[in-house]
C-alpha cells in the first residue's frame, strides 16, 4: 500500500534521511523504531508532504505522491497522527473531530463521529469542552479519533505513547491493536521497542537515517543486532 524507496531528506546542510526503503502492506501494523534523532519524524514529514524530499520516491495506493501537497496526500487516504498530537486547543472536542473530515469522507461525517465516540467514550463525554483542557491521554485519543474521521487507508501514528503514564501506554497499544483488528492498516513510529514489537507484524529499525534492521517482529525481537542498535552494545 505504501512504498518508500531510496528516500533522502534533510534541513540545510544536514542530511537526515540517507536513503530509506520501506513498505507497508494492506492490513499490517508495521513498526518503525529508532531512538531520538535518527530521522523518524523527518520520514513522517516527507511522507505527509510537510517537507519535500531531496531524492527518492513515495508511492501510495498505486499513486506517486513524492513531493505532493499535504492536502492531496490526505485526500488519497494517508493520514498522519503527529507527534505531540497537534490538536486544536481552542476548538472543542467535537469541532476537532469534525475537521478530521475536512478534506476526506465529509459525507460520512455523522456516522464516523458516532464510530469515534464508540471507540472513545471519553471523547463523547467531553465533546463540548475545549480540546486544550483535555489530559494528555485524552488529547492522544482525540488526535487518533480526528485521524479516523477521514476514513484513512493508512494511519501513521507518530509516538502515540509519548508523555503518557505506563498504564495509559498499555491502553494505547491495546487500542492500536484493536484498530488494526478492525481492518485499519497502521504504520507505528515509536521509541517504545518492547510494546511495539508485541503488536507489530513487521519492523524496521532506523539508525542515522538508514534502515539497519528489518523483518518479522518475532525475528527482530530475538536478533542481537536490536540491542546493539538501541544500546550501542
Amino acid at each position: 500500500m505504501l512504498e518508500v524507496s531510496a528516500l533522502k531528506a534533510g534541513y540545510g546542510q544536514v542530511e537526515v534521511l540517507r536513503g530509506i526503503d520501506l513498505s507497508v502492506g494492506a492490513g499490517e501494523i508495521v513498526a518503525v523504531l529508532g531512538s531520538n534523532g535518527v530521522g523518524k519524524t523527518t520520514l513522517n514529514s516527507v511522507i505527509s508532504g510537510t517537507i519535500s524530499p531531496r531524492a527518492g520516491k513515495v508511492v501510495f495506493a498505486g499513486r506517486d505522491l513524492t513531493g505532493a501537497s499535504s492536502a492531496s496526500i490526505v485526500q488519497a487516504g494517508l493520514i498522519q497522527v503527529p507527534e505531540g498530537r497537534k490538536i486544536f486547543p481552542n476548538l472543542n472536542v467535537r469541532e476537532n473531530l469534525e475537521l478530521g473530515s475536512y478534506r476526506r469522507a465529509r459525507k460520512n461525517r455523522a456516522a464516523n463521529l458516532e464510530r469515534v465516540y464508540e471507540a472513545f467514550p471519553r471523547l463523547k463525554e467531553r465533546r463540548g469542552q475545549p480540546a486544550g483542557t483535555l489530559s494528555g491521554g485524552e488529547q492522544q485519543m482525540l488526535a487518533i479519533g480526528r485521524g479516523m474521521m477521514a476514513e484513512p487507508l493508512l494511519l501513521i501514528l507518530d509516538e502515540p505513547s509519548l508523555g503518557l503514564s505506563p498504564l495509559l501506554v498499555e491502553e494505547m497499544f491495546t487500542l492500536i491493536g484493536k484498530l488494526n483488528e478492525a481492518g485499519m492498516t497502521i504504520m507505528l513510529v515509536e521509541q517504545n521497542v518492547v510494546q511495539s514489537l508485541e503488536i507489530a507484524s513487521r519492523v524496521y529499525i532506523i539508525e542515522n537515517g538508514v534502515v539497519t534492521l528489518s523483518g518479522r517482529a518475532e525475528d527482530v525481537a530475538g536478533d542481537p543486532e536490536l540491542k546493539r542498535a538501541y544500546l550501542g552494545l
Partner: protein
Amino acid sequence: MYPISIVAEAMLNGLLTGAVYALIALGLTLVYGVLHIINFAHGAFLTVAMFAVWAAYVFLGLDPYLAIVPLTILFFAFGYVVQRFVIGPASHGDDGNILLVTLGLSIIIENVLLALFQSDTRSISTDVSFQVLEIGGLLISKARLYGFLGAVVVTALLWLLLVRTDTGKAIRAVAKEKLGAQLIGIDVKHVFAVTFGLGTATLAIAACLLMPTFYVNPRVGGAFVLVAFTIVVLGGMGSITGALAGGLVIGVVESLCSLYLGDSLGQIGIFIIFILVLLLRPTGLFGARA
C-alpha cells in the same frame, strides 16, 4: 450640565458610530487572530473602499447600500489575491516581514490615491443622508441607524461563519495549530488568504455604511484605523465579541468627550482608554489570558 436628553442623544449617536468602528476593527482583529500580524494596510484599504463607493455613486449612480454586495465580493477577492500573491510570497513566512510589506502597501496605496485624487475631500449625499428619525424624543440620523444595523448583522454573520462552517473552523484551527491543520488536509495558505479576504470585505461593507454621512480623502482611513486599533486592544486582540463591545464603548466615549470637551477633543477619551487598558488590563476585555 447638559439636559439628560442631549446626553442621551450623544450616547445613542456614539453607539451608532461605534458599531461602524467595530466593523472596521473586526477585520483588523480577525487578521491579527489568525495571521498574528497587525495589518498596517488596513486603513489604506478602507480608503480605497470609500473611494470605490464614491466612484460607484458618482460614475455609475449606484446607491451605497446597493453597492454593498458587489463591493464585498470585489474586496474579498482583492484581499485574497493581495495576501496569497503579494504579502505571503514577499514575507517568506516571517511575521516581521509581513508587517513591513503591509506598511509598504499602505504607503503605495495612499500615494497612488493622492496622485489620482489630490488631497481634496469628496462626499456624496444620497436620499438618506439627511433624513432623521424621531424615537422617544431623540433625533437619530437614518443613515447612522442603517450603519449600526448593518455592522451588527455583519458581526453576527461573521461569528456564525467562524463557529458553524468548516471554513470558519479551519480558520480558527489554523490560528492556533498550523501543522496540525496541514496534516488533516487544510491548505494553510488558502486559509490565510481567505481570512485576509474576509478582513478586507468587512472594510468594503464599512465603507458603504459610512459614505452616506462621511467624506473621503486619501488619508481618511488612517484616522479610522487608529480608533480601530484602540478597539482591538480594548476588546482583546483576536476577539470578535471584544471588537463589537470595544467599538460600542469607544463610540460612546468619543461622543461624550465631544459633547463635554468640544468636537476637536472628541478623540482624547479614546486614547486615554487606550493607555489605561495597556496599563491595567493588557489582554483586553475579552482577550485570552497570556
